[in-house]
């Protein structure tokens, strides 16, 4: 067999290098242009779909206003007004008969609902305290208080077991709610209203009630108001 010359081998090598480089460039360019892109996955292989459901922290308010109406406090003792007591046709007047003009839609409360998918701690803060909101100091200083109860149709503030939704009246190991009247003594500070408000359907709401003590010498005011801000954090 005839010997191949050095020049021929060199020519073949250089040709191989040029072809290799050129082929690579062309392949990469064309691969980029493919839509949809071609992959090395087989057409009959199995695939997996992974999805992670994120925690959604969301609350909503229904019946967002408690309006006590126009009230004239007792001229010697002042008057207590509790929004969980009717001010309807029986003239209960929020617990102080004759003090306030009759208001329909009483008793009145603010309902907080867990709209998300995770357990929440609910806190409440006010932009004003009683001295600013109401004023007066005789015979006692004014009071601006709140209390939390489970909504009767959708009780959501959970107990320690996490299964029966029989809410504890007081906080215990991070569960329960502010059942007893608590005074807003500081403005813009969070007060815990409910620990562990669940997102389960028909088990997701609490009601906040308000109680006011209006001193006898409270100054006359028209539609004085306080804004309550509810904040939900993950339980």
């Amino acid at each position, binding site marked *: 067999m005839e010997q191949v010359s050095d020049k021929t081998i060199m020519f073949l090598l250089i040709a191989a290098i040029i072809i290799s480089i050129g082929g690579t460039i062309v392949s990469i360019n064309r691969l980029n242009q493919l839509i949809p892109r071609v992959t090395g996955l087989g057409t009959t292989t199995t695939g997996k779909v992974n999805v992670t459901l994120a925690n959604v922290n969301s609350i909503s*308010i229904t019946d967002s206003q408690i309006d006590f109406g126009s009230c004239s406090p007792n001229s010697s003792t002042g008057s207590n007004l509790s929004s969980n007591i009717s001010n309807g046709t029986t003239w209960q007047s929020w617990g102080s*008969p004759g003090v306030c003009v009759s208001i329909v839609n009483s008793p009145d409360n603010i309902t907080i609902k867990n709209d998300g998918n995770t357990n929440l701690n609910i806190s409440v803060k006010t932009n004003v305290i009683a001295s600013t909101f109401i004023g007066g100091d005789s015979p006692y200083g004014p009071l601006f208080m709140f209390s939390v109860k489970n909504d009767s149709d959708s009780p959501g503030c959970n107990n320690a077991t996490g299964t029966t939704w029989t809410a504890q009246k007081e906080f215990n190991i991070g569960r329960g709610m502010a059942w007893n009247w608590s005074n807003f003594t500081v403005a813009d500070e969070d007060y815990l209203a409910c620990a562990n408000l669940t997102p389960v359907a028909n088990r997701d709401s609490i009601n906040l009630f308000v109680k006011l003590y209006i001193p006898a010498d409270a100054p006359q005011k028209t539609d004085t108001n306080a804004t309550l*801000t509810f904040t939900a954090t993950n339980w």
Partner: protein
Amino acid sequence: MLNKLPILLIILVIIFLITSLFSFIMMEKVVTPERVEVKKPQTSTAAGIVQVSIANPGYEKEEGNNGAGI
């Protein structure tokens, strides 16, 4: 001329390695789906209003839950 053959072979191997690397990177881009980061809110807020009008305390009340015995 033949004594340069090893150098040319080495160049050839390097080119093949680079080609393989490029191909791997391209395939990785094509096959690996992009991750979608879902940001989850940690807090949410809502607001309500408490309102009252205070009229002049001009007369004594007959009964009721008066006083600050709370």
